[in-house]
């Protein structure tokens, strides 16, 4: 009970902190800090922009292959052989939706990051800071969508193992009969 209360308080505190971060005006010293670190921050953001782009292409290619060359093909083959693949088909449908969500969240993140890179942090430190917080939230969304995709991939694997076991059992029973 105490644990739940502590967790609730922590959550409330972090929410109010984020809320305060995005609404309270920046202090003069904070703005000055952004202005003086502007070049290094821009350089880090540019580097992140590049590395995230290659990560998006590499991960996207892998997820695409899993969906089209493995899940869809196995499902089609099972259906063609008149085997019950309903669980696998529904998990694959969830995977497709999650893949669309990954593409969409990354698109929104990249657009926002490109906008952020165009903001001059020496002239508009406050705008820059607010945009940075927004991009940060969007990157968290991308991470969540990747975690979701990986989790559905694991679910599909488990469904496949269950199907295989059932198939083996049924085959053995038929051969024994």
């Amino acid at each position: 009970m105490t644990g739940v209360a502590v967790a609730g308080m922590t959550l409330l505190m972090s929410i109010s902190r984020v809320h305060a971060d995005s609404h309270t005006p920046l202090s003069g010293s904070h703005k000055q800090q952004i202005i003086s670190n502007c070049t290094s921050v821009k350089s880090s953001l540019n580097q992140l922009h590049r590395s995230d782009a290659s990560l998006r292409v590499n991960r996207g290619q892998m997820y695409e292959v899993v969906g089209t060359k493995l899940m869809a093909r196995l499902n089609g083959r099972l259906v063609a052989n008149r085997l019950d693949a309903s669980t696998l088909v529904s998990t694959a449908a969830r995977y497709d939706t999650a893949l669309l969500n990954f593409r969409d969240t990354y698109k929104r993140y990249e657009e926002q990051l490109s906008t952020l890179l165009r903001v001059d942090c020496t002239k508009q430190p406050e705008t820059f800071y607010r945009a940075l917080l927004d991009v940060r939230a969007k990157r968290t969304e991308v991470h969540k969508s990747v975690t979701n995709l990986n989790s559905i991939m694991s679910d599909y694997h488990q469904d496949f193992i269950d199907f295989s076991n059932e198939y083996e059992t049924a085959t053995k029973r038929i051969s024994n009969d």
Partner: protein
Amino acid sequence: MTEPKETQSEHRLVTLMMKHQLTVLIVLTIVIALAFTSIGLWLYNKSGTAQIDLSRPGYEGIGKELADDSEYKNVDYSASGPITSETLHEFEELYEAQLENAMTIDAFSGDPLSPQSLGIDSPDDK
């Protein structure tokens, strides 16, 4: 009898166009080309292709960091044929390799955009 004003101006426009056929053709061609280019660019941005187009400025030399296409050439499970223990085992091997690949990297994790990591957190918080 004089022609109505509208008919007169239409007639003048047609005469003018007939007189400058080549100019009209060039202008029309440019307008059509601009329209198609705008539609193409809109689709390019809207569909998310722009985000995975690494030939854009700022992404020079990124090709080396990309996975080789041949990495996925072996991932080819046939969509037709019978289901046997062997074909299920073949699928399991292919799938597990990709599952391991997915789980190895926790993509987009960490918090590189936090003001703290970028060194621009509020000095009052320190």
